[in-house]
């Protein structure tokens, strides 16, 4: 990993989107066990996966993981904590006026 350079990896993945009453979720599983680190970027290829209500879609796709440069990784690790309020639930959006 270079200080500034980024490396892109092509990874096969399985996408699961559940748009059902009993569960609303969406996941991407990297089939080769690839791991995402701070600052990395993930792009799933192909058309948007649109699950209609009641539908569960499981599809094999390709994804590109663009690895963060060393500097970006360190920066993300150092500053990520400041976004902690995103982890909190307040029932309402941050918009002051709707």
């Amino acid at each position, binding site marked *: 990993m270079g200080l500034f350079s980024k490396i892109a990896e092509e990874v096969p993945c*399985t*996408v699961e*989107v*559940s*748009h*059902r*009453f*009993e*569960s*609303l*979720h*969406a*996941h*991407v*599983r*990297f*089939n*080769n*066990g*690839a*791991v*995402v*680190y*701070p*600052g*990395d*970027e*993930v*792009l*799933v*290829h*192909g*058309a*948007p*996966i*649109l*699950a209609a*209500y009641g539908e569960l879609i499981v599809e094999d796709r390709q994804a590109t993981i*663009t690895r963060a440069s060393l500097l970006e990784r360190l920066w*993300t*690790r150092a500053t*990520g*904590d400041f*976004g*902690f*309020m*995103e*982890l*909190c*639930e*307040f*029932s*309402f*959006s*941050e*918009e*002051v*006026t*709707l």
Partner: protein
Amino acid sequence: MNAQNPDIAAETPIVPEIDSTATTAMATETTMLNPRFYTTDFDEMDRVDVSSIRPEWDKLIAQMKSDPNKGHFKKNADWDKIDWAAMDPKLRVEFIDFLVSSCTAEFSGCVLYKEMKRRGNNPDICELFNYMARDEARHAGFINDALREAGVAVNLGFLTKAKKYTYFRPKFIYYATYLSEKIGYARYITIYRHLEANPDQRFHPIFKWFKEWCNDEFSHGEAFALLMRTDPKLTSSFANKLWIRFFLTAVYSTMFVRDHARPEFHKALGVDIEWYDQEVFRKTSTIARQVFPIEVDIDHPRWLPNLRRMRDAFGQMDAGKRKGGVAGWLGKMVGGAKAATAFVSLYTIPVIKREPPKNVRLEPIY
């Protein structure tokens, strides 16, 4: 980690960009939310050792495994029909904001918990996060259904957009999600009890589900309380106590500002926002004595006046943003400075010292 073991596939859940576009003539708004993707120090999570709290831990996990709320999130005869078209438009906008934000929060919780489950190698941690992810996905599905009735469709076609991963240290996840889950419990139970006494103000059936719902939030909070107990430094070192104080002040004041920005919602429920928020703070602070060595003094003479200042400052910043131009920019800056001053004043209110009990576990009693 999974990288060293290619046989195990790493699954990475993703936070959705919920694009609620109008599907009926009634719904006209589009709500776009910026998704974030989290990662944490999974090696540190793997090192968590629950042996010092094993009996309490096993009891909590057994309770989650038994899934007491499995049958709860179903629509039955109690789910009254709502005439959305007849709802006051201002109330409708605020209530939709409530549903969309809550749905996204549940979904984001699911994503975070699932991520921790999939990337971890610590069986205790993985089991816990698996159950919590299950609950959150279930809650999200339930709210989504209420949104559909209102003519708001949730678009899950976000997966094919580029997503960047940010980072939180595990302790930040503990503090933030512990507080979030316990505040969630206090918020829901306070509304539930209020509507129990004033059923005529229940303008939507979803509030009837809040009691069992918030028990899930409560037990998730219990899990984070136990996790914090596995490393006493997390709640006892000087720096961490300052962090806890910061979290409490930031979360309480944000809640105050956001609730006051939704007057129609609270008016329809017949709830005085200041009373409600103080009530939620009081319950949360009482519960948080189980693990935090300090408590914010919400009866201090500086508390409410500075929360109100903060609320007004946010209003001023928003007005400036809307106005635009130099005058708008200036308004935003002045508002920002006022908010910062109010926050400092809140943060420096002397805290109440507490001695967390030997046994950390609590039951929901409100």
